[in-house]
């Protein structure tokens, strides 16, 4: 079983190197194969982890139920994003297009590799290193389109996230110092060891380490007030990268916080870390719900929805009962599937209409019968509608809050989630479920509506189109776009269908092994 951990750590890296060397067409196929292999390997670990509690390889690689949840989420998104990319990326003829695709595939595989490496590490210092590598690679991926907005977003992202990780490194060092009281001056910073000795750590030091870790890793997770890079990076990155950032990267940072939470709870009890997470979670949820009400840019809207969901995760942790923890971990899985699908849908819309400005978009479902409908479904899932997985997870979190009991917080949670639901669903239905120029008379699209819709901000070519690689896209052309009916690519539909299927499965009837895995992981969080 340990071999699987090594394979998970080696496979994507080999694929990344290969995809730089082989022709683009092969790289396009390699990525989903690697994603499917990673997802398969991760799933094959689940039964063992459920039975034995953990799988280890050597002293540095270790997977327990908690890290398993994050591995499943990341590998699933790796697979679906790779499938989506086949349909989304267009290879421009010429050397520039090939170079772009090579960079993209090499970067995407390294990015996924780093996100898989993080939950595999038993050493907290190496966990930090893996997360820092994700920052570096993903910042380059955000910048890959080489537009003004992409450069701005990448600069903000790399600077703010690196500063955050500087703080997280300080947290690692402070925690290490806490451990020297028990283990002596030199020891391996493995979380198993830290958990075992935690109750002898000095309380002040552990508190400091926890707050620094929430602030530091929270920057990458997108907690308010250190979320400011997030909407820019998510909206300006190429869409497959946005999906990975939102569904997997934020969760990976959350995983790091959970490890610090475990150790802190074992050292000084769970009240303090829960209160810290509550403050950050409420701030995130509140701000994101308000911003969701006024978004025009579709990808930016989904970015704020990510902030909202990270807030829900933090609040769920603050409830401190097993029920809520199970909800939180299920939420991680369901959010990965839902947000991936939503971004894939946004990518499909972007390719079809050449814009993500929702004021200039009408008739989405008319033009994109499959991906448009699934985009609406993904948005409903993100708003926690049954029968999708997020309904189940948020229901568990709120029930956990009521049994904690923190009635006030649970009530605020429900109100703010409802507010976010209004924002998300209003914008999406306006865009997708309306009659668009495609349904009217093609080119003669209602010019009056377009003029009204576009005057407040105008459409800026860089802002509207995320890639410089949309051949023949009339970027910046004013007015509602007249498009013909039909999907952009069947691969996009396949990727979205996978996401919707996973969401439905999680919502209607989670597999027995998965439920047991979540229970185990929740009890790991509960009793250190």
């Amino acid at each position, binding site marked *: 079983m340990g071999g699987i951990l090594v394979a998970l750590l080696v496979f994507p890296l080999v694929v990344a190197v290969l995809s730089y060397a082989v022709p683009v067409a092969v790289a396009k196929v390699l990525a989903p194969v690697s994603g499917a292999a990673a997802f398969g390997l991760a799933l094959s670990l689940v039964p063992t982890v459920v039975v034995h509690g953990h799988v280890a390889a050597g002293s540095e690689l270790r997977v327990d139920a908690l890290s398993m949840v994050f591995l499943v989420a990341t590998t699933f998104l790796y697979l679906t994003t790779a499938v989506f990319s086949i349909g989304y990326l267009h290879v421009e003829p010429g050397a520039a297009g090939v170079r772009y695709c090579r960079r993209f595939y090499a970067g995407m595989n390294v990015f996924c590799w780093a996100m898989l490496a993080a939950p595999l590490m038993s050493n907290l210092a*190496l966990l930090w290193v893996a997360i*820092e590598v994700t920052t570096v690679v993903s910042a*380059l991926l955000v910048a890959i389109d080489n537009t003004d907005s992409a*450069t*701005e977003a990448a*600069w903000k992202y790399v600077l703010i996230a690196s*500063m955050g990780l500087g703080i997280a490194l300080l947290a690692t060092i402070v925690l290490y*110092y806490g451990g020297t009281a028990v283990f002596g001056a030199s020891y391996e910073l493995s979380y198993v060891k830290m958990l075992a000795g935690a109750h002898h750590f000095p309380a002040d030091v552990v508190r400091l380490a926890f707050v620094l870790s929430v602030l530091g890793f929270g920057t990458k997770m997108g907690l308010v007030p250190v979320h400011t890079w997030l909407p820019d990076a998510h909206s300006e990155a190429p869409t497959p990268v946005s999906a990975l950032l939102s569904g997997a990267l934020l969760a990976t940072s959350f995983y790091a916080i959970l490890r610090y939470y475990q150790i802190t709870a074992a050292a000084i009890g769970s009240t303090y870390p829960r209160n810290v997470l509550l403050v950050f979670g409420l701030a995130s949820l509140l701000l994101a719900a308000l*911003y969701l009400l006024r978004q025009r840019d579709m990808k930016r809207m989904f970015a704020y929805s990510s902030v909202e969901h990270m807030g829900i995760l933090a609040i769920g942790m603050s409830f401190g009962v097993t029920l809520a923890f199970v909800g939180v971990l299920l939420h991680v899985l369901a959010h990965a599937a839902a947000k991936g699908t939503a971004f894939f849908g946004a990518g499909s819309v972007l390719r079809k209409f050449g814009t993500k400005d929702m004021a200039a978009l009408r008739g989405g479902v008319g033009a994109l019968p499959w991906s448009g409908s699934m985009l609406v479904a993904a948005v409903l899932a993100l708003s926690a509608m049954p029968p999708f997985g997020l309904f189940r997870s948020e229901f568990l979190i709120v029930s956990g809050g009521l049994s904690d009991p923190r009635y006030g917080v649970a009530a605020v949670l429900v109100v703010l989630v409802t507010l976010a639901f209004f924002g998300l669903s209003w914008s999406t239905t306006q865009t997708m479920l309306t009659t668009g120029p495609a349904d009217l008379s093609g080119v003669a699209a209602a010019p009056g509506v377009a003029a009204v819709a576009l005057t407040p901000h105008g459409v800026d070519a860089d802002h509207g189109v995320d890639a410089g690689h949309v051949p023949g896209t009339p970027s910046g052309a004013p007015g509602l776009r007249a498009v013909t009916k039909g999907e952009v690519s069947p691969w996009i539909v396949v990727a979205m269908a996978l996401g919707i299927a996973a969401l439905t499965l999680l919502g209607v009837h989670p597999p027995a092994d998965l439920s047991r895995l979540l229970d185990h992981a929740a009890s790991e969080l509960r009793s250190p």
Partner: protein
Amino acid sequence: MAAPVPSTTAGVEDVVAVIVLLTEFAMLRAPLLRSQVRLYAFQSLAVSVLAVVVAATRHVPDVYALAGLSFVLKVVVVPGLMRRLLGDVEVHLAGSSRLGAASSTLVALGVTVFAFFAVGSLHVHSSLLPPTTLAVASAVVLVAFVLIVLRSDVISQAIGFYSLENGVTIASLVIAAGLPLVVETVFVFDLLVAVVAFGIIMRVHHGRSQTLSTDELDRLRG
């Protein structure tokens, strides 16, 4: 645990640590981009010296390797890369600070005082370095934040991040010198990778806008 700290060594260490902090203050008001880079190289040199002092006086041989690595990377390689980037840039003046030199120094003094009081209330004891060094390290981190916030050009902001890392390195010398060497090495190489990413994005930014200023990076909002 090591023997009680001899006071002369403690004095030397404190002086080196304070030199690092003063370099951070100097960066805050250095008007030329090249002088920023030079100050960063000097600061990294001071950090390497501090590591050598710790290794020699406390008999932690691992730290020698760390000192050597940090000398090669932070004094030679990183400043060299930054100079190459500056080589084909017309701009020599750092972007305008959002506050005057006097006010920024006052703000930096404020956060330094805060760092000293905050660390003082933690009651951290170290067998390796005097606890005041930890306060200095925290102050370096906070002043680096001030530098990043106040300066509006990509070079100063990147230098701010690198010097923040110097502050964290001092902190790790004080309270976590026993951190296994493998991990320390990975940290340092990680910094190099981050430097490459910063460099690429800075080049892209300069290539697109012919400026190193961040004033134009304000289109994405809301």
